[in-house]
């Protein structure tokens, strides 16, 4: 054994034997510093800066002017596009979250019941989760295309040609079409989580229910769903957060159009920050801060309403 490796083994062996809590603050900081610096630079600073910007107007030549709650007042009382974006985002969030979570549960139950070709279906349903938003967006723009899209081709094929339309080109269908693509992407994720939770359920409880001649519906509503409550709540909260911040897919598929019918709060923030021929990041920062507070409030309410007071034991 060389001298170097002997020394290294000595150091590592002794280090392992040392209580890390006894290490000096300086040493701990030295090891933590890279991660802390990275976190501070790329997470803490941008957040703090956004809060700071939200109370300021950034004028030409980099002049920063304190405007107090002026930005927030303009957003809440004089910005109809913001409210349009809020309405779209709310609709998107509520519908897509419910369909995503309970659709995922249905698919999981289908696989749990050992439907024919369950293995293949699991792969097919989960594959969209692995795709990036860009890919999903491009695929669905093609599917919805009026002239050469699959959606209209199917309608035509089954004799419903009268319903062919420009799915992303009309305000009455655009948001629902984007929602469809988003649900397609995330349904498989919820399915997999539910499937894992279903397989973790205690077999004796389900077996006892079967011995008691409990039907599928009763078993689902009185045994399975109550026992999956924690998973459902977690998925609802996660899905809710993701949809309140929806940006990528909307941006790729419609850019917020036509006529602001798919404008979400996130796309509006981006437009105000980068598309409006202005360097004023104050106003878009204020929208971002306001939306952050709203999301936080909703999460707190949801968690409070849905939390389980009596812990199930099994």
């Amino acid at each position, binding site marked *: 054994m060389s001298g170097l490796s002997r020394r290294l083994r000595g150091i590592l062996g002794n*280090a392992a034997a040392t209580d890390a809590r006894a290490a000096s603050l300086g040493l701990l900081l030295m090891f933590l510093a890279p991660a802390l610096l990275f976190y501070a630079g790329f997470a803490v600073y941008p957040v703090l800066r956004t809060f700071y910007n939200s109370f300021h107007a950034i004028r030409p030549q980099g002049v920063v002017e304190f405007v107090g709650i002026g930005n927030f007042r303009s957003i809440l009382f004089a910005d109809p596009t913001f409210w349009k974006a809020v309405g779209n985002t709310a609709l998107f969030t509520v519908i897509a979250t419910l369909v995503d979570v309970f659709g995922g549960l249905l698919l999981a139950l289908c696989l749990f019941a050992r439907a024919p070709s369950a293995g293949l279906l699991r792969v097919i349903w989960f594959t969209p989760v692995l795709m990036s938003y860009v890919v999903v967006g491009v695929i669905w723009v093609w599917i919805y295309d009026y002239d050469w899209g699959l959606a209209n081709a199917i309608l035509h094929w089954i004799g419903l040609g009268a319903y062919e339309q420009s799915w992303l080109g009309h305000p009455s269908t655009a948001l629902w079409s984007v929602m469809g693509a988003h649900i397609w992407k995330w349904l498989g994720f919820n399915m997999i989580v539910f499937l894992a939770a279903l397989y973790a359920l205690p077999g004796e409880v389900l077996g006892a229910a079967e011995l008691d001649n409990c039907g599928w519906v009763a078993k689902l509503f009185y045994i399975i769903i109550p026992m999956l409550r924690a998973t459902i709540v977690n998925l609802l909260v996660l899905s809710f957060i993701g949809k309140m911040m929806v940006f990528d897919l909307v941006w790729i598929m419609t850019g917020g159009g036509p006529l602001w019918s798919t404008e979400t709060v996130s796309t509006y923030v981006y437009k105000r920050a*980068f598309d409006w021929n202005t360097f004023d990041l104050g106003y878009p920062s204020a929208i971002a801060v306001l939306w952050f507070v709203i999301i936080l409030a909703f999460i707190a309410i949801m968690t409070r309403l849905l939390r389980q007071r009596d812990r199930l034991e099994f």
Partner: protein
Amino acid sequence: MLRGISLPLCAAALGLAVVAAPLGGRAQADDVTLEVWSHEADQPAKVAFRELAARNVEKAHPGVKVKITWYEKNPMLAALKSALPAGKGPDAFYLEPGFVEYITAGYVIPLDDLIDWNNIEPWARKVWIHGGKTYGVPQEAYTNEIYYDKDALKKLGIELPASGQFTQAQFLDVVKKTKAAGMTPIAQGVGDRPFPGAYVVGEALLRKLGPDDYLRLFTGKLSFADPRVAEVLKWTKEVVDAGAYPKNFMTLKLGESHYYFYLKPGALMLPMGSWYTGRAFVPEDKGGQPANFPLGVMQFPAMDGGACNECKTSAVGASFVINAATKHKDLAAAFLNAMSTPEMGKMWIETIYLQTGIKADVKNFSGPHAAYFTELMERQKGAKYFIGAPQDLTTGECKDAFAQVLNSGFPGGLLSVDQAVQMMNKSCYKG
């Protein structure tokens, strides 16, 4: 013991830093990399043009490397808007004259003493003059034209007047006849740009109002309820309702609209800036126009009682500016100058087939698209130019309304004339 190793580790790291620092410093002093950001990554002729200028600078300045990062426009603008306020960003970058906020914010420097202005057309330089100082080097100039399929027009039994310009009634008739023949009259889409859908209505407004009132309209000083504006919108609505645009107008992207026009499924017309050539004149297997495509150029239609039917939009497009935070101002200027020599101007015309702000003594056009360029020049005879496009004249809420209403909702058939007027006035008209 762990505490014991901290000192040697720190000392080693410090030592390494001390040893490496002068090496890094020397590398920076000797080898300068000039960072350039450019849009138009998808246009091979322009990429070749700017890369050639970069290599020329490298030859003239040993030790200098010019690194061009190629972007699409929107991601580039987003990156610039993050980098510049932080005092970062490239040494020189692509910009168009409409983005005056970069000048007012002080992120680009005046170029009056840095550039050889003898090589630049004065009318093109003028576009970049603000407060008596010149901030950009104009490279690309273009005019708005209607490209059309000569054979298809002939098959429809329609003859283009010698002036190359239909009246508004004739144009509407062309749209109706084309539609009746089962062909899409105008290949246009707004899937990824905030302006192509407004070509027809914009050029019609320019001809009807004349340049002064047209400028007033898009700078908030003239109401969209003006009877002349309403007349133009009413005519445009007739064109739209006659089925002028493809059904996938809302999602068709700019590049796709080119392909739609000259290849599949084919359309009679494509209103576009004369930078059409950047996408069309590339090899067919890269999405270019077929070699035998019967391309023609016509004027936008004349409006009844138009104040200036010989007017047309001309604009300076691709230009380059220098970042105020650059440490290599002179080198950046050298790159801008290298792109602006008469030889490069000649190369621009002969390889890109597009007008330019660079002075280029080209009397006889050569190459496979010489006939096209001759016809394009023919369409410029007697033209009065209005410099600037609506998407560049508008800012903030009005710019957004222009993109959503005149570019998309109105030509997309989603809005009535009254709704369009109301929405545009709400966002643009300052009374």
